[in-house]
């Protein structure tokens, strides 16, 4: 069954993440008070497939499989689901799966974009550490923005329940909305620091490869736009007290925008795909 590769296993895992994500919508409607085994087992099944995918890739490469964007995203998603499955042993915290499933599904769909997983050479090339660092920092910044979006989703859920006097606002296990807002803010700040640092390497990389400090490129322009947008979001919050629901929606909306557009700009970029 050689045609059934590690990517196929990962595809199956993403399907399970999708099922969990759909099921989580029902959990949201019920409120997160009761622990839910169905969701936990869906994610457990996905984890088994996900782990198989990682192991197959690792055995194939004969080393830790984190060498390109696909592998990095797959690895980050695997750590998230593994952490959830450990935390979820406690029935009081099992509700977190209702939030994790959406993120995992998005990350899975994102990772499956073909251009993120170019064929490996006989041995991975680690000669240019600066490129790896640049990619890792930008990837981590997207992860931080993603986690901020998860906190924003929790905020919006809790805020809605409190506004509309739903009983589950009191009985749900979600943290207070003010704490969620701080988490959102902190993760956005973390994301923008990582993105700024990652982007700061771009001029040196361009100088190395093209002999110029700046070159017009769709992904570079896009990244600067994303950076400026998040910076504006944070400034609006700090300077003008912009917070609450609008801040949360902006956080969720901007992350969804990244998930839907990042891969497209990556494909359009001649610098990243010469």
């Amino acid at each position: 069954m050689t045609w059934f590769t590690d990517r196929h296993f990962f595809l199956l895992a993403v399907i399970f993440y999708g099922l969990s994500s759909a099921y989580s919508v029902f959990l949201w409607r019920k409120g997160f008070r009761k622990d839910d085994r169905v969701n936990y087992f869906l994610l457990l099944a996905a984890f088994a497939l996900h782990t198989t995918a990682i192991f197959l890739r690792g055995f194939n490469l004969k080393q830790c499989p984190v060498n390109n964007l696909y592998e990095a995203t797959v690895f980050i998603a695997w750590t998230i689901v593994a952490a959830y499955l450990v935390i979820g042993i406690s029935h009081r915290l099992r509700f977190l799966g209702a939030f994790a499933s959406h993120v995992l599904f998005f990350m899975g769909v994102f990772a499956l974009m073909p251009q993120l997983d170019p064929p490996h050479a006989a041995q991975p090339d680690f000669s240019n550490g600066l490129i790896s660092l640049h990619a890792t920092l930008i990837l981590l910044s997207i992860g931080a923005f993603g986690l901020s979006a998860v906190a924003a989703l929790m905020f919006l859920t809790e805020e809605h329940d409190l506004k509309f006097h739903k009983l589950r606002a009191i009985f749900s296990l979600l943290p207070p909305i003010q704490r969620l807002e701080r988490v959102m803010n902190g993760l956005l700040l973390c994301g923008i620091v990582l993105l700024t640092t990652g982007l700061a390497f771009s001029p040196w990389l361009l100088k190395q490869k093209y002999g110029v400090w700046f070159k017009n490129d769709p992904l570079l322009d896009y990244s600067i736009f994303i950076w400026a947008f998040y910076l504006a979001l944070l400034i609006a919050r700090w300077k003008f007290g912009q917070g609450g629901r609008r801040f949360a929606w902006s956080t969720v909306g901007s992350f969804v925008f990244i998930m839907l557009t990042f891969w497209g700009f990556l494909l359009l970029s001649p610098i990243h795909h010469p």
Partner: protein
Amino acid sequence: MNVIVIGLSHHSSPVELRERFAFAESKIPDALKSLRESGVADEAVILSTCNRVEIYAATALEPAQAFLELKEFLKTVHAFENPLGEEIYTLAEPQSLQHLFKVACGLDSMVLGETEILGQLKDAYKLAHQHKHTGARLNKIFQRAFNVAKHIRTETNIQRGSVSVASVAVELAEKIFSSLAEREVLVIGAGETSEKVARALLSRGAKSIIVANRSHERAQVLAKEFGGRAVQFDDWAAEFEKIDIAISSTSAPHHILDRAKLDPLMKLRKNRPLLLIDIAVPRDIATEVNFLENVYLYDIDDLQSIADDYLKQRKEEIVRCEKIIAEKVEALFKSSGFQPQISTDGQRLKPVQANL
């Protein structure tokens, strides 16, 4: 002589209707006087809280006739002209006594098992007694009701857990704010319930309490008790920039805070979350302020759903309490001159529902 009760409560009517029928404490003695002078009741007690308005009366009239006249009395006193249906309930013996005992035990309260109602019932009785509107009949059943409430409190778990308005308010605050340690609380109108809410918040670590009351002296006394400060009643809005929680329980007949007034204040607060707890009847805060971002408004009826859940959890205790109450009512009939109203066929009368 039959002891009957007529009234409205959170079970039967919305806050909009209850606030129309609420009696100001200062008006109760006159109302009782006029009630007795009308001949409807020989003895009477009026209980008026944010959750209920009830008249307990000992009357020589047939219950159906007495209910009709009491209903007219309520409508006349409050200049209410619309028709009333099931919003008003009427009970004759023995259900009226069971109802009183249940009320005293907090079994009929919005927040099950809360003890605040017992204090309010004692105050209502004391007021009527002081103005000599009670006699042997009501004195006996009210004293018995207080004893039953004490018995239930010590013998059952009906008061276990957070079941008071104050505790529910604290729970809400803890769902909004990361910690109560840095929270400033404004109390507008130094009523008993708002005092309890403030005290509960302080006990959970709230930073300070600011009190605004029409009687500035009362505000100062309360502020001193809380280790906070008092402000002039007209200046409470100026405090909104700093505070995080506002508890309102004034006796104002109209809204003291609406959207137009709060909107600019929220901008000054840089949109920090604000929890508004309106425990006044009539309500102090217009409901549309809840549409403002970062504002969370809860009025007395909003706590109903929370109470319902407690009700579910304590179902077993309710059954036990009701059994005790039934026994106590039976014992009351046996041990004294009380006789349940017996119909001609020898059966106890069912609660009389007048054709209202």
